[in-house]
């Protein structure tokens, strides 16, 4: 029963990643694309946590933390690049 609820949650999260990928593809400027990338990286943290719960390995939570740090640094760097240039 509870595993079915987790499967439903994983499929809804994958659907949200797909919807924000559409905005990533057709966003009119650099700014919209980096907004979509921010939302996708934060959703990816939840998705990696779901994978860790399904495979029952705690080491995947560390991977989620490192993925979140890399996504955050990437968003900050691209935003500063848009504002001031290299």
């Amino acid at each position, binding site marked *: 029963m509870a595993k079915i609820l987790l499967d439903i949650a994983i499929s*809804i999260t994958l659907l949200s990643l797909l919807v924000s990928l559409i905005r990533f593809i057709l966003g009119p400027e650099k700014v919209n694309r980096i907004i979509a990338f921010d939302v996708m990286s934060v959703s990816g943290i939840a998705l990696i946590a779901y994978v860790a719960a399904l495979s029952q390995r705690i080491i995947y939570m560390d991977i989620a933390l490192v993925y979140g740090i890399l996504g955050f640094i990437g*968003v900050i760097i691209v935003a500063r690049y848009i504002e001031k240039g290299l």
Partner: protein
Amino acid sequence: MDNNWIEITGGILAIGGSIFLFLGSLGLLRMPDAYNRIQTGTKASTLGTILSLAGLFFFFPGWFGKFMILILFVLITNPISSHVLARAAYFTGVPLTRKTTVDQLNESLNEDPSRRAHLRKVSTNTEEDKI
């Protein structure tokens, strides 16, 4: 029997979090403006990720430290990234939508010319690009 009900509660919390994630990216697709997209995307995805991690905590109570580290990390870094994105979008001249009624940053910059001079020095690149 008790353990089963605890896991069902966690599953319902996780489904609520994933519904928040889905609504956030749906707003990302439908909003008319870059600033509205920042608003819906970052706030809804913050709440959705925190609810999903809190739902998974009911399945694995032994992983409390990892979940708390991830929740605190998302709670700290997501407002910073949305602030930096909104600042970059405003100073590079991304247009507001037509339905905008008030732009308080533009009004305060018109009142105080010294701040505008500082901000022009910040965003010289885009003005050269517009010319």
